[in-house]
């Protein structure tokens, strides 16, 4: 199968879906171009401020894009590329896009409050606590999975001294972090002009890649990288954002776009054939296609965190409901689906390649980019750097949110307990420590549990959107069916994981306990949410204006 055809099918399907299904949803949900958005009705020039739709699309996409859409399809490719491809197409169009678009519109109609906020305000204090525990456990899994993937990618194996790609990418990554801090210092502190600084920063960014490639001096083992990365995310969680995160995220966006453009152009020129089997088996390594395919692809088709992290910001800046909400809510998810297809093509091309998802992805994309003259070895370092930049963004955001949630557990505690347990250093330490304890199991085992938890969040968001649509007299079948599917998939996956880890031939009680905790919390949360959204009238104090 020619992969160019897959890419073209993906682009055509997404474009058609954007116009037809996106337009249909907009009509069903009563998207109104003349209706004033919160950016106008609550304008304060700080949070509520109308922004150009194209700029907002870029901002929203960089907020939701992490390493998930690359890692997920590569791990799921063990079932063959056809089921993964179909799920990316189907999931992005009918579930992930609907989820993101619905969450954004619901947020716009609730004065810019995020869908997570709508859930939390409506489910009460007990629901909030359950939600917090659920989110914290999920975040620990995220931190453990991405730390392990990065460490394994950067690790140098002394028994294979010629295999230097990890050391090269690791060296480039460390240089990139230093560059970002220097860039931030000059832009924020020395008031260097942003245009000139950006050009210089991007040039130096590519210089970091070349130096890493030519002088791979950071040769650390996986365990050493694990420790270094845990120290890094602890610091990233504690340091002021302008010192490291803001300049790094800014420079990262150029890596993201360069990699996307390079990969698409490379696939068009190379149009490689898929070497991976179209379909392998329903059961692979003890895991069945249903439900594990749907939780493993994760963010490549739908992600619950999209609605929690980004919709609250984006909805406050939307200028017009139409066409902006569809472009940003639905369009950004389809672009993420395209990233997932590129990842699938990369793994499909280098079918026999081994290594971490980052290495597999880099191996494929570097060959594609070689078609326009970029040496494969340099391309690999570039792609791994881009991947790790995504992963580090996911990591530090997850650590910060995890730290915040842990602090919130002690909101009602005594002053001394609060001082001890809710301070920023202790809560960061506990969050990172809990993640570190999971590293021993490796990302491959952690990923299905993380995927299940993430998709469960999406199911909850779809429940809230369905309830809002139903209460406002609109059709909600387009959100109800995906919600039922996501709850079915994720709860089944957790039951199977519990069975595997607690009663299987090789029991793993730690991961099994995680699955049990997530399952129980999810069930309680779903019952809470259904009873609030469907049966009980909202109390006046909690009522939120929505229409």
């Amino acid at each position, binding site marked *: 199968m020619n992969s160019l055809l897959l890419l073209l099918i993906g682009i055509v399907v997404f474009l058609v879906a954007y116009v037809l299904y996106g337009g249909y949803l907009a009509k069903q949900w009563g998207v109104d171009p003349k209706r004033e958005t919160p950016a106008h009705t609550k304008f304060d020039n700080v949070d509520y401020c109308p922004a150009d739709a194209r700029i907002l699309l870029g901002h929203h996409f960089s907020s939701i894009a992490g390493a998930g859409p690359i890692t997920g399809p590569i791990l799921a490719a063990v079932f063959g590329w056809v089921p993964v491809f179909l799920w990316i197409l189907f999931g992005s169009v009918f579930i992930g896009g609907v989820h993101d678009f619905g969450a954004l519109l619901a947020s716009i109609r609730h004065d810019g409050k995020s869908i997570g906020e709508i859930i939390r305000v409506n489910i009460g204090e007990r629901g909030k606590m359950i939600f917090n525990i659920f*989110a914290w456990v999920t975040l620990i899994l995220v931190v453990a999975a991405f730390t392990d993937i990065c460490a394994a990618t950067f690790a140098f194996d002394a028994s294979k001294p010629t295999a230097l790609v990890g050391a090269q990418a690791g060296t480039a990554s460390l240089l990139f972090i230093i560059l970002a801090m220097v860039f931030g210092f000059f832009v924020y*502190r020395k008031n260097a002009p942003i245009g000139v600084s950006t050009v210089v920063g991007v040039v130096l960014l590519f210089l970091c890649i070349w130096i890493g490639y030519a002088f791979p001096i950071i040769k650390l083992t996986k365990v050493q990288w694990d420790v270094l990365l845990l120290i890094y995310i602890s610091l990233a969680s504690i340091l002021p954002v302008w010192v490291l995160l803001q300049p790094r995220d800014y420079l990262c966006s150029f890596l993201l776009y360069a990699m996307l453009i390079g990969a698409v152009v490379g696939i068009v020129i190379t149009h490689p054939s898929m070497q991976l089997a179209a379909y392998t088996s329903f059961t692979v390594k003890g895991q069945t296609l249903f439900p594990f395919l749907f939780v493993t692809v994760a963010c490549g088709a739908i992600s619950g965190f999209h609605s929690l992290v980004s919709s*609250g910001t984006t909805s406050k800046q939307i200028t017009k409901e139409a066409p902006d909400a569809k472009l940003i809510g639905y369009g950004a998810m389809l672009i993420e689906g395209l990233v997932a297809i590129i990842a699938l093509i990369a793994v499909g091309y280098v079918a026999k390649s081994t290594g971490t998802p980052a290495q597999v992805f880099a191996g494929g994309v570097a060959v594609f980019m070689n078609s326009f003259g970029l040496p494969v070895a340099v391309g690999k370092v570039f792609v791994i750097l881009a991947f790790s930049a995504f992963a580090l963004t996911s990591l530090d*955001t997850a650590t*910060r949110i995890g730290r915040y*949630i842990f602090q919130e557990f002690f909101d009602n505690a005594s002053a001394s307990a609060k001082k001890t347990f809710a301070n920023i250093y202790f809560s960061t330490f506990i969050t990172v420590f809990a993640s570190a304890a999971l590293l021993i199991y490796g990302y491959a085992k952690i990923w299905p549990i993380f995927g299940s938890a993430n998709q469960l969040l999406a199911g909850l968001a779809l429940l809230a959107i369905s309830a809002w649509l139903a209460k406002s007299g609109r059709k909600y079948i387009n959100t109800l069916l995906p919600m039922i599917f996501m709850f079915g998939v994720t709860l089944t996956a957790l039951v199977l994981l519990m069975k595997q880890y607690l009663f299987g031939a090789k029991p793993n009680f730690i991961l099994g306990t995680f699955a049990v905790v997530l399952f129980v919390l999810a069930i309680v949360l779903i019952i809470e949410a259904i009873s609030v959204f469907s049966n009980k009238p909202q109390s006046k104090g909690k009522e939120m204006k929505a229409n």
Partner: protein
Amino acid sequence: MNTNDYLLLLEKMYSKHFTIEKDVKVLDYPINIYARYSDVGGRTFVTQNDIIDKFEVNEFCFIKSFDELNLNDINDFIIFLKSTTEKIVNPNRDHKSTTITGIVVSENSASDEIIKTISKFKFTKAYLFYLHGWSDIRLILIDLQNSSIITNKEGAKVKKVYQNTLLNK
């Protein structure tokens, strides 16, 4: 344009985004207009109250008019502005930067010595090795007699704003 007219124009300009106090004493130093602006940015998770990271950027403007401007007045004003970076600015882990803008309004021409002092003035203060942010001081002299503006290097960034106000644009 006389001092009162210009102060009224400044007040009108600031009122769009700043909180204004008129004829107040700040740190025992009399000020014609004290204008404050604070912007907080960052990211939230789930609800607006769940702030996972934030940073605040402030600008404090101190407008002082002088009848007969002399170098001592300028030096005293500079000492006052420097003291605000310690006593008014509140450095903390969310504080990114504060700009102190000191504006001297005079109906008389400034001497070369004063112009030199203002032009060469530079002050910046880092809090806890920048981890708690920093402060910069902009120093601006509005010469109403010649309709000219003299600034230090930091103040040059906003010279056009005050120039437009002076020309009542």
